[in-house]
């Protein structure tokens, strides 16, 4: 037989083998569920592996005995957007995905998340803290389950504060006072007292809502922008002026919250408002700064409620096994599993049952005489604030667009010298156009405007005094 025919036959054989081998799903093979998490490997590899194995064991008889295999994929925090978009567009997206609350809104708005109300019993979706789960209901459907949470504490570098004549206890506990101190501190020392993401991923919109101000007005066509009201203009102007005066680092305009932790752990920032779990990172990265650190309660807005950042688990709208995927999300976010994760990581759980664990109680002595004690103290402050904490994020599909527009607009004021009232008026017009292009929403989607109760306020004040 000539060589060419042999080659042709061989190629044909390979093609047939490949195509028959790839055709169809093996009915006897376990159902595969892909779970994406954010930056948990390698620290929590054992925890996650155990979690997945226990889920597989509990669902060994699923789908007529096929069982379930959970494929856990850990994705770097900064890469999740790109990877998720690329994988989903290629039809290879995960069944269950871990998202930050900010990314959640974007993915939900694009129709990437399945409604969970039809997949899980109401008793499951109501297990979580209302301040965290409120933001996950969009267009009348629960689109994700809250997983772990972060409320802020104030980290004070006593050594750096002393160079400007301040101490952790003399640092102002309201934003206006802190801005004033930041200006004086910079004039005296040339250093920075605080920083805040004003431009990139601006935190000002959530801070405005945390003050009890509503940057929206109700109209017959749904919510419209109300950014030019004097209180909002005054608040935004105060921060922009502080930046223009040079009392905030340049990264305040161009970097997100990650820059604050970096600056603090490098000893370039005297006060950082950030998650209590960051203390561990600072301890590992710069023990000298950690040793100078004192922890105080976070500054809140006028409502006295902390903003809570929510990590969520959602089920892809393209999942082939949405019911099982929803069960996996519920399993990962269950009270028992969250309590264990919190013990290992120091993050806050989203289930009230987990918060009752002694792990979240204040340490016996409040002297910061050991690293673990300080971390425990920071954790207890965060946990105390949690029951009344709120995700100051409107639960509407347009929110990611509104927030991005705000950030871009504010960069013009910060970096191109635009007048703040003009900038806010421009942003308001853009907000109106965005809101008009979405399904009308009313004030129900906005976070609550009631102040925290006295009980929690008193506890927070007591914490600050300690």
């Amino acid at each position: 037989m000539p060589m060419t025919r042999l080659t042709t036959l061989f190629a044909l054989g390979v093609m047939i083998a490949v195509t028959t081998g790839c055709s169809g799903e093996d009915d006897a093979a376990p159902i595969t569920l892909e779970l994406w998490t954010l930056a948990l490997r390698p620290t929590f590899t054992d925890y996650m592996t155990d979690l997945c194995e226990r889920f597989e064991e509990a669902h060994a008889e699923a789908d007529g005995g096929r069982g379930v295999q959970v494929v856990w994929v850990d994705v770097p925090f900064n890469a999740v957007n790109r990877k998720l978009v690329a994988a989903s567009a290629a039809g290879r997206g995960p069944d269950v995905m871990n998202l930050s609350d900010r990314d959640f809104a974007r993915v939900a708005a694009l129709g990437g998340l399945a409604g969970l109300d039809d997949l899980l019993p109401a008793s499951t979706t109501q297990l979580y803290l209302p301040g965290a789960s409120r933001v996950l209901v969009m267009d009348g459907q629960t689109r994700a389950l809250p997983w772990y949470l972060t409320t802020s504490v104030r980290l004070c570098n006593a050594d750096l504060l002393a160079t400007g004549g301040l101490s952790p206890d003399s640092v102002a506990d309201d934003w206006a006072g802190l801005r004033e101190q930041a200006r004086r501190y910079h004039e005296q020392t040339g250093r920075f007292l605080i920083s805040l993401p004003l431009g990139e991923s601006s935190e000002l919109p959530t801070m405005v809502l945390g003050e009890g101000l509503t940057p929206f007005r109700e109209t017959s066509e749904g919510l419209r922008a109300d950014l030019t009201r004097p209180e909002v203009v005054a608040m935004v102007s105060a921060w922009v002026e502080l930046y223009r005066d040079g009392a905030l680092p340049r990264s305040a305009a161009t970097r997100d919250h990650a820059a604050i932790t970096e600056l603090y752990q490098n000893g370039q920032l005297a006060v950082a408002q950030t998650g209590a779990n960051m203390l561990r990172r600072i301890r590992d990265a710069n023990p000298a700064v950690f040793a100078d650190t004192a922890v105080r309660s976070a500054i809140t807005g006028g409502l006295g409620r902390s903003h809570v950042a929510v990590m969520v688990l959602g089920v892809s709208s393209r999942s082939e096994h949405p019911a099982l995927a929803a069960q996996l999300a519920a399993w990962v976010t269950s009270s028992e599993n969250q309590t264990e994760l919190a013990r290992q990581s120091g993050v806050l759980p989203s289930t009230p049952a987990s918060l009752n664990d002694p792990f979240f109680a204040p340490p016996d002595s409040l002297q910061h005489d050991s690293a673990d004690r300080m971390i425990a103290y920071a954790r207890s402050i965060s946990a105390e604030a949690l029951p009344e904490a709120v995700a100051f994020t409107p639960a509407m599909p347009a929110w990611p667009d509104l927030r991005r527009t705000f950030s871009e607009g504010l960069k013009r004021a910060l970096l191109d010298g635009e007048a703040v009232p003009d900038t806010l008026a421009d942003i308001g017009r853009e907000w109106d156009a965005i809101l008009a292009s979405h399904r009308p929403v009313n004030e129900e989607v906005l976070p609550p405007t009631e102040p925290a109760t006295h009980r929690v306020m008193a506890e927070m004040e007591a914490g600050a005094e300690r």
Partner: protein
Amino acid sequence: MSKAVSLRPYRAWTPYVFLLPGVAVLGVFIVGSFVQVVGYSLTDTNAFNDGDWVGLDHYRRLLHDKKFWYCLGNSFLYLLVTPVLMALSLSAAMLVHAGLRWAWGLRTWLFLPVVTPTIVGAIAWKLLLNEDQGLLNTGWEALGFDPVYWLSERPWTLVSAMLVTIWKGFGYFMMIFLAGLVGIPRELEEAATVDGAGRLAVFRHVTLPSLRPVLVLVALISSISALKVFDELYVTIKGAPISHQTAVPLIFETAFEQGEFGRACAIGVTLFVVLLAFSLVQLLVVRDR
């Protein structure tokens, strides 16, 4: 006696058979993808949904989108790197070509940025240009000057990214010029020298005209690269307003940050048309001369 070699008769389709693999690869990966992108640009497809037909809506919206025009304008501003790159790389090539004893080491040293990953180089530049603690501003302020806001304020944002592009690219173009210089017959320059021409005159009347095809090639390649620049901007000035960036970062942001594939494809197609027109004009201008 050797066996007679039988030559098969020439068939008209034989060349096409040889062309087929190349055409197939180009067809699938270039033309096919491009047609798909044009198709997407006419829908509101996103990462999670196939989307509906919207016709020319994205293109109509682009016409009134200030951000798009800013970014396109910045793309053309970025073309300023081309003359700088050409001047620097030609100078470096002539230095290396001059027959100096340390030419080999110099060539290697100048070529190093080319083999350095762009991301690594851009991060190093970003640290150097850091506005609060960067080496450049620290030195600048020590001399009594105000700090320069390299990474956040216009026009320094684009200048910073251009610096990275130039640093990264000029070694590559130096090698192309070097190949061109090696190809110029020595006799031409020697004859001009014998005729009394100075170094500058030799360069102007012999070297430069001989390098014309290389100059055209470098101008074309570097300007198209400048219009398509992304990595340097993404790493160096990420966080600066999008209106400080060029068209490709806008495509990236629209597709991967906002998830709007349809709109991103429309920007991509528009940029392609602009690039095509620019290249054609450039070629026509060069040909006429």
